[in-house]
C-alpha cells in the first residue's frame, strides 16, 4: 500500500502561522513563461499545486527545505523562514 503525501504530512506537527512565508512573486510568469513548472514535482510537501491555470501555494504543510527558492527556474519564489516557533516541528528529526 502506497502512502499518499497528504497522509505523510498528517503525521507531522505544524504550528501554522496566519501569514504565508512563501510567495510567488509574479503569478503570470508561472503560467506564461514556465513550461516545466518543476515546483509541482520536486517540492517534498506538495506545497505547489496546479489549480485551474494558476499555481496555488499550500504553505501550511511546508517542510522548510528551501528547494523552491533555488530550483524555481525563474527564481520567482520569495521565501522566508516562518515566524519564530511556527511551521513544522520535528518530534523525531
Amino acid at each position, binding site marked *: 500500500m*502506497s502512502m499518499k503525501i497528504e497522509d*505523510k504530512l498528517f*503525521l507531522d506537527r505544524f504550528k501554522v502561522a496566519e501569514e504565508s512565508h512563501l510567495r510567488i512573486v509574479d503569478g503570470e510568469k508561472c503560467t506564461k513563461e514556465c513550461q516545466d513548472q518543476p515546483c509541482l514535482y520536486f517540492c517534498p510537501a506538495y506545497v505547489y499545486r496546479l489549480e485551474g491555470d494558476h499555481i496555488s501555494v499550500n504553505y501550511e504543510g511546508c517542510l522548510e*527545505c528551501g528547494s523552491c527558492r533555488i530550483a524555481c*527556474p525563474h527564481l520567482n519564489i520569495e521565501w522566508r523562514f516562518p515566524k519564530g516557533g511556527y511551521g513544522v516541528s*520535528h518530534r*523525531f*528529526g
Partner: protein
Amino acid sequence: MKEAFDVAIVGAGPAGISAACILADAGVKTIVFERGEYPGSKNMSGGVLYGHDLAQILPDYVERNCPIERNIIESRIWYLSKESGYGIGYRDSIFATTRKHNAFTITRAKFDRWYAEQAHKKGALIVPSTVVVDLLRDEKGCVTGVVTGREQGEVEAKVTLLADGINSPLAARTGFRVEPKPEFVALAVKEILELPSATIEQRFGVSGEDGVTIEILGEITGGMDGVAAIYTNRNSLSLSIGANLADFAASKIKPYELIEAFKQHPMVVPLISGAHPREYIAHWLAEGGYDAMPAVYGDGYLIAGDSAMLFNALHREGNNLAMASGKMAAESIIEALKRGDYSRKGLARYAERLADSYVIKDMKKYRRFGGFLYHNKELFNELPRAASLAAREMLTVNGVGKKEKQKLIVKEFRKQVPLRRLLRLLWHGWRAIR
C-alpha cells in the same frame, strides 16, 4: 534597549551548540538563537553521530544521558537495481567494546534539544522561537550583532557565529554565502518507522543496544545522483532517500513517491514490514564540497557547520564536521576576545585551525566526489542493471555452460556501459576518492 553579548550564535544545531559549550566553559557571555520551537525541531540528518567529536566537547556525554538510540556495530552497503541487489556488510565486535560509541544513531529533535540543555547548564543563553532576520553592522561593515524577528529585537555582540544550517536565507541576504546552485545540494526526505525493539533486533541480527546502518546506492534513486539509508534506532527505523536537487527538478520525480518506491523494494520490505510511519520530513544536504564553501570568517563574524557547506557525502559525515568547526570557531573567538580584536584579521586563526584539521583535509580530498556522482549517471542506471544481470545469470542453473553465460554477461555489460565509459568511470572514480 539593545542588550550586549560577547558572542551571538545563529542556530542551535551541532555547530552552534558546540561553540556555545566551549564559549560558556571559558566564561564568555553567549546567546544562541534558534528559530524552532525548541532546538532540533527544524533539524534533520540521516541519523548517525560519531562519538569522537562530541567527546571533544562533552567527554562525559554518556553520563550526561545523551539520547543515544543504538550503538552501531555493523555497516552495510547495498547496490540495488529495481528488483534485486548486492549487499556487503562489515561487523566488528570492537565497536561494541573498546571502540563503543564510535558511531551511534540519534534523532535530532531529541539529541539537539539535549545538547542545547548541556550548553545552557554551562551558562549559555538559548533563545528558541526566534528567527534572526538580519545582521547589525557598523559604518565599516563589521558585523556587530543580530536583528531578530522580535520587537526591539536587536542584540549586539562582539562576534557573531553563523551556524544556521544549509538552508540559510540569512546568509544569502547578507551576502556572506551565495545561494547554492540546485546541483550543489541534495534534497532528502526521511521517514521514522516505528517497530518494536525486539523486532528490530531480530531482523537486523543484533541484541541489546547494538544497531546496524545500511547505505544504499543504485537504481533506487530513479536514475538520479542520490543515496538512501536505513538506520536502526531503539524502537524505530530512520529511512531516508535523497538526490541532487537539479536532478529532481529535471526528472520530475516526486520525493514522496521516490521514498514509497524505496519502501517497496524487495530488499527493504522484509525489514520494514508492519512498521508504523511516525514522521515525514525533508532537508537539504550540502553536496557542493570544498569548492562551494564560502569564506568562513570576516569582520566580526564566522561561519560553521552546514552553513559553511561542511559535509562529506562519501562518509556520511556532517554532524561531526559541524561540531569540530563549531569548536574551532569558539577557540578562535576566545583568542580574539582576549586580544580585543574582532576584525577579519583577529578571527583568521579559525581558517588556519580548520585547514590544519581533518575537516578541511577531508573536504579537499573529496572535492571531486560530488561532481563524480553527478556527472556519471551510469552509476544509478546502467551499472546496477548490468551488475544485477551478471549475478542473476551466474546464479541461475539452467543447463547453459558458464563460459557461455560469461560471454552473455560481458556482451550485456558492454552494451550497457561501453568499455571506454567503464574505464573513464573507474579513472574518475579513483580520482574522486584517492
